[in-house]
């Protein structure tokens, strides 16, 4: 066997190992992060999107590696990092949990940043290696090896997903799984270093391996880190099950059980247990057979057993919870109790008319998984499972004294869903709201019924209920659920978005976080597309990544509705997707295929598949509950997901062939498109699309996006056959990205100012003294530069030259200077604030009479003179510091064929300048004399509300649009500062020219004199 063969084999094994490691590390990280973040769709979406985004950026960074001399050493270094980082990441998350104020949860912004920082090292390295491997997979350096690496990576992923789900999770705790990754990657690194003759690396990796094994054998890292998460309590038991991390702790004799860091039950919470049981059971005259959905850990079984029941069926999804419940609560060993480990949704569908009461004791509908227990379809299934006159009891977050609008909406939606199925719905108001539904009359005579039955309780009894069920509180509860709200349906799940809004209000953040995140991804993808050769191809990949992720989420939700949240089956469906991508890439990468045709065909089929799924979903949603009637077999979901994966995967190798320039370059950018598209899908689909558009709407959206990409491909296909190979890629992070970022900042600030829930926070921020000092500092630096000074000394040490190099690189790639970026990011808030909220119909002009200045008005007395001073020499403010100017300049760099405004328009700005000067004094005198007189300047321009004005925003949008054609529209046509400075400079220039002429004439006269 030749050296080349050995080397190639080792590299290929490394690729598969990377795929394996990435998937397993992702699953481990996702599960660990749930200790820090709520397990709602936003938390999961953010972690997943961050993961994909960072990996995509990593692969982008790997594009330039073809210039490197010894890439194998970088691969070895990367593998060593890949080995260590999953473990470090895991320990980092757990220590962070322990270091937080006990018992608190992260808000949306914290979730975003913390997960971004914690995931950064591993994801960047793994993405980087993807690009690096593509160049090393063979010595041929052809497009095909990009496809080969894709196939191998997917194959590693399949193995990783399957082994993780079926072998690792049920058997090993998380730290051991991360340790396994450590050994796997160090092993691969050793093999690779031997195969390529880098013995030194091999020995180092081996030493690290031995050291790691020694350390892990010596200390129980799992237990140490698990303990660190529960300071103040004794950790009795911890277990990682396929469904989450369970921990049992003890404090002063009280046992508490946690799932993913949140308490789900304790031995001493009789109030919760009694409320979960007795309201519903008291309202049934003779409950014999009871179904308890979760709630065993709360202690509900002992309470049910107080009633004369014959059997208690107790369903938990996770068998480990059943086991813990049996150990924590002695009542679970009652012979009447039948523990059932199953998905309750699935279980209930199989039962007909056999229970007198069904008690659902689950958390609020905070995720798609939990939402399944609060839908019309679930309630209908529960009704079928109930005997004549049976009751259904469930809990929701309620209101002790005052109901938040989001809580009202949630309660109203669930109530409406119940009311479409059951004839009577009774609400027991309180901090925990309990709802009982039945087809029999329900009354508030709960205490009396319990007394008749002779049931001893500590809280649910006359003495407490008298205070809980006062006339005014019952009335408030009824009013709370009476509001208009849409019913919650399986395929149109509205509750979890409502709950997310409530959660965000409670823990901080708002829905802008996912919106802006998605917007940022769209811009990043757009900017990369603008710089890419044969844009239609990477556009197809990015949209496939997005649509593929969206369809996968849709299929998983549909499966859970249908068959339950079953660990193995869901793992199978996800693995099917990966298998599909590997097979698809293998099929699409065959040399005999015509790349453009494969790409186009897969695109058409993916669009068609999305539309068909959308049609099926809307047909399913239109009927009452056809899903229950016609059971779709589980393999069909796996098959559909595999097909989606196949179509996504099949596009990758032909795309590589169509866009091929250099191996690492093409591989890095194509991976980035695929991953960034998937990140967009991860954040947008589960958080926004499904709650807002429904399952069918999401499918149609994916189909629409894919159709658009198909049309684009069709339009461009003909041109590719004429030109044999594409032109090389434009520079990375081109001006389009700069403009995209600038526009995102502009829009983001606008949305944040206009949106009610964030406007106060951003307003408060804009008045922070530290922020103002930063602005003053930047103005000072600007003045120094305006007189020709330099920010960095001409000559200097290594630090100065390194900083200068970094600044130069930033300038080269984005064509905006570092100072410009600094000013833009700092002054954007000041400069754009009046556009989005102003007391006047014309922003910027009347701050001196504003009753409620924004930050621009507050700083205007310093800002405007400073800007005019800076402009005195060469309009330094306009070209370097002004945020509006920078936005216009960045836009001008992107747009081709942009031109200057004709001179006639410049007259407009002179008129505006005059108007500004006149109105400044006019409005002040009007304000001073009598503010309320009709018809004066003040009342004309004053809107009397600090609000967004549609006209102003429309004008701003118009200016941005006009700038596509004419350079710096605002600066040239509207800005008084710009025009004033221009006039000063023009006058100055004329003076200078006159003097120059005089000077020129003078020496000639001298010369004449000398000559004569």
């Amino acid at each position, binding site marked *: 066997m030749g050296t080349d063969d050995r080397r190639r084999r080792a590299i290929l094994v490394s690729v598969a190992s990377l795929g394996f490691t990435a998937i397993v590390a992702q699953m481990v990280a996702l599960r660990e992060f749930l200790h820090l973040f709520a397990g709602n769709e936003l938390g999961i979406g953010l972690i997943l999107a961050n993961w994909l985004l960072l990996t995509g950026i990593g692969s982008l960074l790997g594009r330039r590696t073809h210039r490197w001399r010894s890439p194998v050493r970088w691969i070895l270094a990367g593998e060593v990092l890949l080995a260590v980082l999953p473990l470090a990441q895991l320990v980092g998350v757990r220590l962070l949990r322990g270091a937080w104020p006990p018992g608190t949860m992260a808000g949306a912004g914290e979730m975003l940043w913390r997960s971004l920082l914690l995931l950064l090292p591993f994801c960047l390295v793994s993405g980087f290696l993807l690009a690096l491997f593509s160049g090393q997979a063979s010595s041929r350096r052809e497009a095909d090896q990009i496809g080969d690496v894709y196939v191998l990576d997917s194959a590693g992923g399949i193995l990783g997903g399957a082994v993780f789900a079926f072998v690792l999770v049920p058997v090993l705790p998380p730290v051991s799984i991360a340790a396994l990754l450590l050994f796997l990657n160090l092993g691969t690194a050793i093999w690779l270093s031997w195969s390529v003759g880098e013995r030194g690396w091999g020995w180092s990796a081996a030493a690290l391996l031995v050291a790691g094994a020694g350390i892990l054998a010596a200390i129980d890292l799992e237990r140490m880190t698990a303990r660190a998460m529960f300071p103040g309590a004794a950790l009795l038991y911890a277990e990682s099950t396929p469904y989450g991390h369970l921990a049992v702790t003890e404090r002063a004799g009280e046992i508490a059980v946690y799932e993913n860091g949140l308490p789900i039950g304790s031995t001493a919470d009789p109030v919760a247990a009694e409320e979960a049981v007795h309201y519903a059971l008291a309202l049934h005259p003779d409950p014999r057979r009871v179904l308890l959905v979760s709630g065993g850990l709360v202690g509900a079984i002992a309470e049910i057993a107080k009633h004369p029941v014959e059997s208690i069926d107790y369903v938990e999804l996770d068998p480990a919870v059943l086991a813990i419940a049996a150990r924590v609560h002695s009542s679970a060993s009652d012979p009447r109790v039948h523990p059932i480990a199953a998905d309750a949704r699935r279980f209930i569908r199989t039962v007909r008319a056999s229970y007198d009461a069904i008690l659902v004791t689950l958390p609020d509908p905070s995720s798609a998984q939990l939402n399944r227990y609060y839908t019309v379809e679930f309630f209908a299934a529960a009704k079928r499972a109930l005997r004549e006159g049976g009751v259904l009891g469930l809990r929701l977050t309620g209101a002790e004294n*005052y*109901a938040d609008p989001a809580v009202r909406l949630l309660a109203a939606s669930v109530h409406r869903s119940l009311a479409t199925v059951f004839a009577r719905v009774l609400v027991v108001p309180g901090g925990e709201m309990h709802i009982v539904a039945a087809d029999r009359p329900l009354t508030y005579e709960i205490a009396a019924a319990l007394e008749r039955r002779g049931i001893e309780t500590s809280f649910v009894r006359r003495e*407490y209920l*008298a205070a809980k069920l006062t006339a005014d509180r019952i009335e408030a509860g009824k009013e709370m659920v009476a509001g208009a709200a849409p019913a919650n349906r399986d395929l149109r799940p509205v509750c979890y978005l409502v709950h997310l809004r409530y959660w965000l209000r409670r823990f901080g953040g708002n829905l802008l976080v996912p919106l802006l995140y998605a917007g940022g991804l769209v811009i990043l993808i757009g900017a990369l597309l603008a710089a890419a050769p044969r844009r239609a191809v990477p556009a197809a990949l990015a949209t496939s990544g997005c649509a593929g992720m969206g369809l996968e989420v849709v299929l998983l939700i549909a499966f859970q509705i249908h068959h339950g949240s079953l660990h193995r089956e869901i793992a199978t469906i996800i693995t099917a997707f990966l298998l599909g991508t590997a097979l698809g890439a293998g099929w699409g990468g065959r040399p005999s295929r015509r790349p453009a045709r494969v790409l186009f065909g897969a695109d058409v089929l993916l669009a068609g598949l999305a539309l068909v799924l959308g049609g099926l979903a809307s047909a399913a949603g239109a009927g009452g509950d056809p899903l229950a009637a016609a059971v779709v077999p589980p393999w069909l979901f796996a098959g559909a997901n595999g097909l989606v994966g196949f179509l996504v995967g099949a596009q990758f190798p032909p795309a590589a062939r169509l866009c091929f320039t250099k191996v690492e370059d093409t591989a890095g950018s194509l991976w980035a498109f695929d991953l960034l598209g998937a990140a967009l899908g991860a954040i947008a689909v589960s958080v926004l699309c499904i709650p807002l558009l429904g399952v069918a709407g999401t499918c149609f959206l994916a189909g629409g996006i894919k159709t658009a990409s198909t049309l684009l491909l069709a339009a461009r296909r003909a041109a590719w056959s004429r030109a044999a190979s594409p032109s090389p890629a434009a520079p990375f992070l081109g001006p389009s990205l700069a403009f995209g970022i600038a526009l995102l900042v502009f829009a983001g600030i606008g949305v944040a100012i206009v949106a009610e829930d964030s406007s106060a926070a951003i307003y408060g921020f804009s008045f922070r003294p530290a922020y103002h000092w930063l602005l003053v500092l930047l103005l000072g630096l600007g003045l120094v530069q305006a007189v020709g000074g330099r920010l960095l000394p001409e000559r200097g040490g290594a630090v100065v030259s390194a900083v200068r190099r970094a600044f130069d690189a930033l300038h080269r790639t984005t064509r905006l200077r570092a100072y410009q970026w600094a000013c833009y990011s700092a002054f954007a808030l000041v400069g754009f604030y009046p556009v989005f909220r102003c007391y006047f119909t014309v922003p910027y002009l009347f701050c001196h009479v504003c009753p409620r200045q924004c930050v621009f008005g507050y700083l205007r007395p310093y800002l405007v003179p400073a800007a005019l001073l800076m402009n005195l020499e060469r309009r330094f403010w306009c070209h370097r510091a002004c945020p509006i100017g920078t936005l216009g300049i960045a836009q001008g760099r992107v747009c081709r064929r942009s031109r200057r405004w004709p001179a006639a328009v410049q007259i407009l700005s002179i008129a505006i300048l005059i108007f500004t000067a006149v109105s400044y004094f006019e409005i002040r005198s009007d304000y001073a004399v009598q503010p309320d007189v009709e018809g004066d300047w003040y009342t004309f321009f004053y809107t009397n509300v600090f609000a967004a004005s549609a006209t102003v925003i429309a004008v701003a949008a118009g200016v941005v649009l006009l700038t596509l054609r004419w350079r710096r529209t605002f600066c040239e046509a509207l800005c008084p500062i710009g025009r004033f400075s221009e006039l000063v400079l023009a006058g100055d220039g004329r003076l200078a020219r006159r003097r120059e002429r005089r000077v020129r004439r003078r*020496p000639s006269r001298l010369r004449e004199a000398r000559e004569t």
Partner: protein
Amino acid sequence: MSARRRGIDRRRFVKQAVIGGGGVLLGAYTVDELLRNRAGGELRVGFRNDAPAQLWEWSREAQWYEAAGHGLVRCVLCPHDCILGENDRGFCRVRVVKEGRLHSIVYGNPCAVHVDPMEKKPLHHFLPGSSILSIATAGCNLRCLNCQNWEISQSRPEETDNQDLRPEVLVQAALQHGLPAIAYTYSEPIVFYEYVRDAAALACEKGLRNVLVTAGYIAEAPLRALCRVTDAANVDLKGFTDGFYKRVTTSTLRPVLRALEVMREEGVWIEVTRLIVPDYSDDLDDIREMCRWLVGALGADTPLHLSRFHPAYKLIGLPPTPAATLESAYAVAREAGLLYVYVGNLPGHPSQNTACPGCGRTVVERVGYFVPSVSIDDGRCACGEPISGVWS
């Protein structure tokens, strides 16, 4: 050639001198202004420029504020001492400056109105067994991580659903329903001070009692004024270290202790509630120290309610307080000399009855919020031992 360069140089020199000199002057002016604003502005703890466009129609000028120079006002109602400019909103979210005057924007505008048992406040030595009309407005001057009413306490009044309920109407409603007292509770009565003041004065005239359920974070002078119309108060003493108060509530301990002393001096009937949060305020030494202070400053007959924590607001990752911790705290409090200690939020606990400190007989029997029997005659047990409290 040299002359030409000299000419341009002169021009450039003049321009640069203008820019440089102007820049220095402007910089000095700006820095001076910002520093001066800072002198009056950095102390501001409220929300800048956050006042609603219009005042609520019954908004009242605040009673406790003073001018602070530079067109600013200083709210002296609570120890936060907010310094506010035109259109600013105080830290409590319910006081705004309009036209140079501080206004309360929750006057006559509660968002929660209920009839509760007296025992739910909790007040155990004040008209046992009666019901009490309870009201709250939006806003609070604290930021407790475990707030049970965060939907109102951490909201602006514009964000909550409010009712029109002027003091006259409120008092009329209490009289109509035959309720003996009005409680200002749920969020924080200190922040709707003017409303409490007027309603309580009117209620006093009509023979009704007034109850404050408060965290006691208030300045001395306003409190003394309010005490004249207040009959009883339940004060949350959430911890007994400054560190705890800062970390969990964004306030400090000393003013709360001072408020308790002032209420005592003014003759208000005081009951103290201590919520025991695992990992935050479950230290027995801390509880012992607090109880000793209570005995010394307020008297051994001050009822103390040791209350059980349930996950709320931002603290959702903690389990309820273990019953054993509450038991130990109970023992510590009794040991410190307090005569009336109750364990709250723990249904069925034996300490819910009031025992006579003299003979040990049960003088007030309680089951939940029910009071089956009160055997106190003229403030005394049958054995002749006086039982402190307001019994009729």
